């Protein structure tokens, strides 16, 4: 490499390096140092892993994490289950204008903020809300029905919020699936299910995996949806981190929780990749 192209290489790399260093690495190093500070008294700190120990010793905290992880996995699978037919329809059964229109329709909810979207669901689900009134009007319910403030409401909100992030990678991979492969499958005597299992899903696997990773991470890191839709049963790990930082002024524990979230969620993604026999590199390459 000549000196000149070396210079170009480093100049092009510089924004990425600066971004990584100042916005990702430095804050994390700072957070990590904070998480190692044990508070022993007013303005008195020692270095140690006591904050991490708190997480494992207090069932409340790891139960909350387990619940958050389990709900996020459920939301991811549900999003995949609903998103896959949608993506398949958009990618394979529509052409031209209607394809663009459908794709845009998936995008539209994201033109408003997450807060507004969540409030929308509250208006629909609440006791005096649209669904409750509709059920009473049709005669399916005798009195007001409360559909808000439970796990199902959280799940609905999470799936709704995540749908786009599942549909986009799926549409992209399914778009690249040659129609003639599906026809060849039929021609060779396969049933629709066999084609889905042997041809469509293996082809879409990178899209499925990247969609699942994004949706899982988004659900795990979601804060507004569980708080607003879950009401009194809204326990969510990010909410716990928020309250440590903001209402308890306990940055040390909050930072430790933050790192535990990072580590444990990475572990879950890693296990998921192993189970689906995919690699991160393969997923990103598509």
């Amino acid at each position, binding site marked *: 490499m000549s000196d000149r192209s070396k210079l170009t290489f480093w100049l092009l790399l510089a924004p990425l390096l600066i971004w990584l260093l100042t916005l990702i690495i430095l804050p994390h190093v700072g957070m990590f140092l904070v998480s190692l500070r044990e508070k022993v008294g007013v303005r008195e700190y020692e270095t140690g892993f006591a904050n991490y120990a708190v997480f494992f010793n207090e069932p409340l905290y790891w139960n909350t994490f387990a619940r958050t992880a389990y709900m996020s996995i459920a939301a991811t699978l549900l999003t995949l289950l609903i998103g896959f037919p949608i993506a398949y329809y958009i990618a394979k059964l529509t052409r031209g204008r209607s394809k663009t229109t459908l794709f845009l329709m998936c995008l539209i909810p994201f033109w408003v903020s997450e807060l507004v979207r969540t409030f929308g669901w509250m208006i629909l689900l609440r006791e005096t809300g649209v669904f409750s009134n509709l059920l009473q009007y049709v005669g399916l319910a005798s009195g007001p029905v409360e559909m808000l403030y439970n796990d199902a409401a959280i799940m609905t909100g999470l799936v709704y919020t995540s749908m786009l992030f599942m549909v986009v990678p799926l549409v992209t991979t399914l778009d690249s699936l*040659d129609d*003639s*492969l599906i*026809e*060849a*499958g*039929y*021609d*060779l*005597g*396969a*049933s629709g299910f*066999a084609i889905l299992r*042997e*041809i469509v899903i*293996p*082809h879409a696997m990178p899209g499925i995996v990247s969609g699942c990773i994004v949706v899982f991470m988004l659900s795990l890191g979601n804060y507004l949806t569980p708080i607003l839709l879950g009401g009194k049963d809204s326990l969510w790990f990010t909410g716990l981190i928020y309250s440590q930082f903001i209402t308890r002024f306990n940055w040390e524990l909050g930072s430790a929780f933050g790192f535990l979230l990072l580590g444990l969620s990475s572990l879950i993604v890693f296990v998921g990749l192993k189970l689906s026999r995919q690699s991160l590199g393969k997923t990103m390459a598509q």
Partner: protein
Amino acid sequence: MSETPDLECRDISKSFDDFKAVNDVSFSVPQGTFFSILGPSGCGKTTLLRMIAGFQEPSSGDLLIKGKSVLDVPPNKRPVSMVFQHLALFPMMNIGANVGFGLRQRGVNKTDITKQVERVLERVGLGGVAERPVSSLSGGQKQRVAIARCMVLEPDVLLLDEPLGALDLKLREHMKIELKQLQSEFNTTFVYITHDQSEALVMSDQIAVMNQGVFEQVGTAKELYYEPDTAFVAGFVGEANRFTAKVKGSAGGSVEMVTSDGQTLHGLDARRSLSVGDSVDIFVRPEAVRLSRNQADVAAMGNTGQGKVANILFNGANSQLILRDQTTGAELNVALPQTGEFRDLARDDVIHFGWEQQQTRVYLADGEQTDV
């Protein structure tokens, strides 16, 4: 069972909105025939093939395989298999799994599948590759795997959708011969669609020339070449000089015509359907034209003239001359005989030419076509 054709189409049609892609096509293909459907792109041949495979439903008409209507049979149950234009090998499976795919769907047990797959791969000359990924194959090998994948199911009819289109020229020439050999080896009925006349002419037992949704002519390669029924077939199959002219006189099956350039040509009116004043299309094959440095050699032919060499298109055995008629200025393509006689021919040389009356194919022009 030779009386029952493997495949029979009866008045089959397919309409899209107000466009008729296939219009009342009827034909039958006897067992073991290599049947080609030849036509330009957009002629409806792909639609026809997809109807046979079951991917599209005919608007009207009936489709029989081994004498039984298959209109209500979905594509995954039809006893036909298809080799796709881009082969459609499954990239997510290895070669063995690709070939064994159809057997797996039938619920054949694993050991039998492995055996049958290996046998069919050997038949196409690819023994021992079952464990390799599809991407490790060359274009021609992929072709053979695609055929093996269909043949292992022993279909009544194998459909091929321009499978040679993606190959380079040299390989394509080679595969033509190989396909024909495979077909006779398996003794399976092949229905092959293509827009490439040389593919059709070389491989086929029967060729249907298709244009604008209808079959213009069905016949052997020779019939199509020497006795085209319609102006379209004459123009599409093989090369030809094309003239438009008006009938000036007609006597005893022989017609005299004048081209728009003022050249007078003579031909045969085989059907005796032409009358004076009709507009006609005239086709003359380049190899039907005889060249000579002596006027006497060609004088006895029905059509004669003197031309100046405008260009020599040298292509070995397929070399051509472009002559400009001395009197009218009309251009004429002539095959250059490779006997050595004309090796020293150069541009601007003047030479005599002529062809027999019966080599002039005459057809009523499109606009005035009557039922012939």
